């Protein structure tokens, strides 16, 4: 990978880290407005990060090095995933280094690490969170796999660059049933994986209803900041996937200033639209009981199956 490549990836990493809190801030703002509240300004998450990095850490005496290492692994793996997603330019320098499957398993690496971090201090909440998180992660795998399968069938490759390029080349494909249903399946999985309603309530303070937050109850200060930032970045990753794998228009295919500018604008706009959509959905629906979540994931599995089958019935 040459210098320009490294520069591109570094720039994308910085931009992603800069955008992620804004996305969450926007969701919160829109939700507040939909609850007829004035709500916190959009930059609130940045302020929270700054505060958390400035604070002390309190660590349980039972916790081992696993507890301290987990946030770094979570953050690192999520960041690497973001480096693989065509957010502004395609194909990325790292396009050939990893594909969709690698991406999914890298996200699983983060989940794995966080689940261990939740178990380490030996608190009942942490164990509960890890157990539920792993349950949902495990049950959402098949849906992801089928959604990716249908994308790959269309593009003839599992590498994100090729998939995006194929849709750019053949706009009609964006209309195909396989495409639409893969999107729907991936959207449901996104809600489950990033701990949004109706699977997990990001605003809950009741330990017994928590999934993601229950694992982070023991973390404080910089470690907490890393975990929060990573989870926001994960949301951004899924948004970018949803935006640029299914509607890749605007992505820069060459490093011209104009193209990059367009790419930046379109991507940010897409992220904004998705954020508003999520906020509206979360206002509209209530949280599902934990044992109805598998049914939701089964729905997304069926959607993925429809996506794949329609792709090979068009054949």
């Amino acid at each position, binding site marked *: 990978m040459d210098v320009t490549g490294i520069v591109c990836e570094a720039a994308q990493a910085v931009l992603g880290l800069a955008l992620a809190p804004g996305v969450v801030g926007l969701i919160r703002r829109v939700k507040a407005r939909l609850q007829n509240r004035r709500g916190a300004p959009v930059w609130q998450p940045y302020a929270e990060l700054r505060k958390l990095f400035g604070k002390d850490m309190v660590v349980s005496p039972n916790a081992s090095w696993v507890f301290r290492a987990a946030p770094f692994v979570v953050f690192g793996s999520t960041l690497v995933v973001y480096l693989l997603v065509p957010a502004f330019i395609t194909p990325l320098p790292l396009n*050939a280094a990893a594909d969709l499957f690698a991406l999914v398993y890298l996200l699983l690496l983060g989940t794995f690490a966080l689940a261990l971090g939740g178990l380490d201090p030996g608190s009942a909440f942490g164990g509960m969170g890890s157990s539920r998180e792993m349950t949902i992660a495990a049950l959402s795998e098949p849906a992801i796999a089928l959604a990716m399968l249908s994308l790959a069938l269309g593009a003839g490759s599992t590498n994100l660059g090729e998939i995006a390029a194929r849709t750019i080349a053949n706009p009609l494909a964006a209309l195909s049933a396989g495409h639409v249903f893969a999107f729907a399946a991936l959207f449901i999985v996104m809600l489950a994986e990033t701990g949004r309603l109706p699977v997990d309530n990001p605003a809950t303070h009741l330990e017994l209803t928590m999934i993601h937050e229950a694992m982070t109850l023991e973390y404080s200060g910089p470690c907490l900041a890393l975990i929060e930032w990573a989870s926001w970045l994960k949301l951004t990753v899924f948004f970018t996937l949803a935006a640029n794998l299914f509607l890749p228009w605007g992505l820069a295919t060459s490093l011209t200033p104009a193209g990059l500018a367009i790419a930046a604008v379109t991507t940010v706009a897409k992220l904004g639209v998705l954020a508003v959509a999520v906020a509206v959905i979360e206002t509209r629906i209530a949280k599902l009981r934990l044992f109805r979540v598998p049914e939701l994931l089964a729905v997304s599995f069926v959607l993925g199956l429809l996506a794949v089958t329609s792709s090979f019935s068009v054949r």
Partner: protein
Amino acid sequence: MTGLSPTLFWLMVAGYVTAASGLLMPTARLTRITGAIGAIAGGAAGLSLACATLWTGESLTLAAPGMIQAAGGLALHLDRLGAIFLAIISGVAIPVGLYGGAYSASYEGRYSTRWMALNVGAFLISMSLVTAAASAFTFVLCWELMALSSFFLVITEHEREESVSAALWYLAMTHAGLLALLAAFYLLGSGGADGSFAALRAGAAQLPPGTRHAIFLLALAGFGSKAGIVPLHVWLPRAHPAAPSHVSALMSAVMVKLGIYGLLRVGLDLLGGGPAWWGTVVILCGAVTALTGVLYALVEDDLKRLLAYSTIENIGLVLLGVGAGFLFRSLGQPEAATLAFAAALLHAVNHAAFKGALFLSAGSILHATGTRDMNRLGGLVTRAPWTAAVFLVSAMSIAALPPLNGFVSEWLLFQAFLSGVAHSQASIAGLLTIGVGALALTGGLAAATFVKAFGISCLAIPRSPEAEHAHESPRLMRAGMLLMAAYCPLLAVFTIPVLATIIGALAEVPGLPAVPAAFHAGLTLHTSNGVAAMSPVAIMAVLAGTLVIVWMFVRVIAGRPARIGDTWGCGRIGQTPRMEYTSSAFAEPLRRVFSQLYRPAADTAVGVARPESPYYIQSMAYRTQLHPWFQRAIYEPLIAAVERAAAWTRRLQSGSVNAYVGYIVLALVVLLIVVMGF
């Protein structure tokens, strides 16, 4: 370097014989030392022999027709396919020998370590010979020797009735399998060929299709009973944990693979592939095996039995690859077939690495705490750091997390199925889609399983005094574990050469071309449906770089020391292990989701202080157990039938001498009549 391989072969044999000769050593210490040295030397020689065969392509051929003339004598021929498995065996034998050298000490005084040494040697040598057998008779002979020696190893702790019943299950299942194998080989030879594989290969082509199908199904059953294909796996979760841990590692990491080897040898090499439904059957077996294995591993509380169930799961994954290979080959997609077989074999190699490491670390946990029940473990990461580290690395690679080796082979499996879906008609594509779903679900559940296995048994507060006073294992055991765990990252880094070697070996099989896969930067597969690129090395590098940068970033902007404060429990006073999540609790959500499969039987016993006031509860006991479906559906009726039959035949045993003499006379008379008749 011609002529070197016989030397290596005899060196390997000599090494293993030395290991076995521990039987004759005067002191237990010497027994251990000879056992370790022999196993290591034999393993090293075997590994170099396998590599020589794989890379130079020169194949070892030895024949002793004089020996056991009646059966056509012994014949050995090590080709590349066998060499792959020989490499697995020898590669595992080295760390296991190292580890066993110290581990078997814990058996001294209680059980005969000499006997154990003899059987370990015999086990290793027989497994190595199976991969090189070149005639049906030699194969079956080594196969049976392998079964018996492992049986004696399973029953090492002959005073615990648990291991006795496990050994009996093993004996019964493995001999049922042996019967199927004998039948298969008999049918193979029915073309009039003598027992040598070459002749069988030539004769198999002329066999009528019905016979070929029968042979394949018999082979699937016979080798499946050894590999642990559901529902022939029942012995596996019993026998593997019962054996001493380094032997469990051998059985789980190596022996089950020989079932795969046999299936490939007979189905692919001797029979030369078959119709599409062979592949379909194998794929379905694989899917059922993988899901059943991982689902029962998930809810298991016994650490070693959890690992045994996960072995079943991984065999299922390998079978998915093998089945896809058979399917594609019959559909005339040779590239995809090579890809699928290569993925399966690579996963077999990888699984040997991490499952070996897992069993060795489980053994050292058992050695440190004396218990396998995860609900009594915990806190080992501070008490036995090396063991925990090995456990963590191997758990991550078995959960298919990048950048470790397990991920690479699962990625290849996905790609193989993908290329199949892209090119088959709807019905086949549908089957493969189900396969992909099963593969993904298995992967996710495996991750959950090993978060539980590591998190519950190694992290947090010890749940019992045994775990409280756990200690790190002796240096020799640590060395063995670390060597075994080192295979995982190494195999990930050197995936490319390993995969190239495997594909080269597969190219020997007729009808399988080398898949055009460009291996420069990373795995760039130019499969017929397009391009798929992934580079484990690059992922490893980027991940490492990112971690370093993030770490430095945090050090710079937040360099404050951490304060120690109790685990937050809503301000309750003091924290006890009883407040932690247990292994059963961790698996509870998934147990509920799949309750239709598990049919868990749970009972809650509430002890109240005074009967008249049910609200003052003194004690609560929650007990749950599963009733596996294969037990329910197959084995209980079968065993009942056998017992009925036995009860019926018992009527012959009147106990009176006259009756027995009467039987003899009767038999004599019948015999005479028959003789006169002809």
